[in-house]
């Protein structure tokens, strides 16, 4: 798994995609940070991270679209399937590499909030909650992305499929908000909603149920990807 991880990380920076991802991520993060804090004269971190969540829903599919579909298109998939590395190790290696790119970019851009320290009392718990929430949401998005990438050899299709699945998860939250809170089905939608659970972290609540939700959804999509490749190997 480590070899796959290192290879993937190297490939991000030998090609264009790693630099392009980081440049776009940092530029958009800088613009959003300025818009939501500096020019809004506000130290409220919540709006910045909400925008970053929506931005991540678009940029992460672009990062993950080549994970598996590139190998299929280049017909190097057979090499991977016959390599002396287990399918789970291969999938996890690629997953962790993509997640490392995202997490590294997010943690670096979170340092922007240090600028606000001389001008306002930052609520550390709220900031930390938002960072953790976005890291967990990013984990889900990356797992969805590598799953979609494993289904097709067309990178664009992989990206579009990823965005569609992510938007479906986010739409659950929108539907939940429309249901009156006294209906039992509202609690089911809230439980399935990525955004509703994101909000509990952003309010400074470190909620075990939400943590289990994000980890289990990520694990589920990684498992689906493993199953797809496992099936492909034996077929």
């Amino acid at each position: 798994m480590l070899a796959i991880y290192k290879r993937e990380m190297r490939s991000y920076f030998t090609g264009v995609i790693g630099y392009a991802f980081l440049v776009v991520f940092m530029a958009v993060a800088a613009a959003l940070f300025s818009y939501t804090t500096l020019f809004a004269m506000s130290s409220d971190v919540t709006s910045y991270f909400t925008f970053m969540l929506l931005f991540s829903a678009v940029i992460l599919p672009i990062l993950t679209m080549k994970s598996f579909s590139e190998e299929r298109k280049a017909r190097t998939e057979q090499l991977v399937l016959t390599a002396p590395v287990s399918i789970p190790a291969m999938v996890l290696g690629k997953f962790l590499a993509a997640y490392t790119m995202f997490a590294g970019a997010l943690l670096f851009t979170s340092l922007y909030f240090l600028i606000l320290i001389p001008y306002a009392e930052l609520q550390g718990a709220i900031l930390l909650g938002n960072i953790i929430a976005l890291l967990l949401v990013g984990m889900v998005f990356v797992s969805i992305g590598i799953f979609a990438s494993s289904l097709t050899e067309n990178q664009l299709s992989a990206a579009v499929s990823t965005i569609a699945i992510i938007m479906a998860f986010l739409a659950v939250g929108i539907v939940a908000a429309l249901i009156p809170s006294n209906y039992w089905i509202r609690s089911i939608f809230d439980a399935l909603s990525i955004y509703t659970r994101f909000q509990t972290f952003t309010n400074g609540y470190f909620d075990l149920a939400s943590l289990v939700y994000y980890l289990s959804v990520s694990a589920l999509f990684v498992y689906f990807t493993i199953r797809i490749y496992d099936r492909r190997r034996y077929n």
Partner: protein
Amino acid sequence: MHSRNFFSAVLVVAIVAAVVFLNIIVYTLDEHFGLYIHSEQRDDLSISGATDTLFADAIAEGKKVTVTFCMYEDALKVHPTGSYVYRTAREFAERYEGFVELRYANALTQLYENGDFFDVSAYSKDMRGNDTVINDTSVIFRCGDEYRVLTDAYTGSGFVDFYTLDEEMYITAYNGEEIFAAMMSWVLTEEHGTAYFTTGHSETPNLPLYNVLACAGYYVDTINLRREDIPDDADLIVVANPLSDFERAAEGSSLRTEIERLTSYAERGGAMLVTLDPMAKRLTVFEQFLSDFGISVRRDANGESAIVKDPNNGITADGFTLVGSYAEGDVAETMYEKTKDLGGNIIVRTVAALELSGGASPLLLSSPAASIHAGGETVESAGRYVIAACSARANEDGSTARLVVVPSIYLTATDAIVTNAYSNKDFLYSLFDVFYGHGEMPYGCHSVVYDNDILENLTMGEARLYTALLIALPVILAGVGVFVTVRRKNR
């Protein structure tokens, strides 16, 4: 083959079901047992020590201030709003041991906690003979024969005098240190003047300024100059944002109207503080009165106020919220010396430029980059405009009439006063101290401001600089990426 596919499908369904089941279990446990950690922001209620010099003389003279709570200590410790006041009181008592004594009494049983008799009737009237209300949330400050009773007779929470409330009666700040300092100073002083707010010109109620004046040691009252003369105990007349003009008697008339009363008051050494709304219509008569002191609001040919704008040194993008700096001149420099170590900027929003003549002196100036905006256009960019001024006029009887004019309603707005970041309140205190000679002020006391996410003191110039630096980072990274990629391809 088919059995393997079937087995795989069953396994996937089972895994999904297990994950769903796990989430249901954890969710249910969370609902029942609250499986979460909530990090709450710690409230810093510790006193800042800003009052050490304020009480130095009184301590040296061996004076003693008694603070009596009309609630026993155990009940006070757990009272929702009183517990913070209790903590501040304890800190004062510990810091000024021997100078501040705390006592706890029950107003109903009229007994102190140690069993002594608590004479509630001694506080049934204030020092001016007005009725007071004593209940279990009253706090009585006393030094010798001087005393002051703070009672929350309006809200159900108690101790409202120690807090700032918004329009919906929600607490927005806790001002315990300042209120303790002000009330202790109050009872250490034997004489207290009265500040009268004028009424009858649609003046907007200025609660923050009212509170600052109370903390500065004034009694605060209102006066309608159309109906009554200015009493002898008037230490200060406050004209706060009038929207309609003052009355002046016709020439040769013996009638005493508003301007005549103000003129008489000034001629016997009266002091005035005027805040004006530059967006309101011109107050011809009143501004003529001000110009007799050498202070005029700058206006264009159409009579519109010349508003000062500073996009680079302002703290809002439109440039109309400025940072003011102390001017040169005896009064301004003395005020600056009193407040320079306290930190924070003085901010004003939508402020007109003043024109000075005669004996008037500038107090606050805009930055050199400021411009004048009138009639929707920028008409001048000379910078360093006067945005607050004072005038001291010697009278024939040897007294001195004093006037301060601030052509903005924002200097004394709640979010400019109830904050630790701006020094508008300390500017006002230094005004009362240095210019009006009202004595030592509770400079530098801290408030605990709740839900305050405003970026205070960040100017638009700084915001643009930070944005440019943040955008430069990805640009540099892009350059590195291009360099590395091209170099690798050319190998």
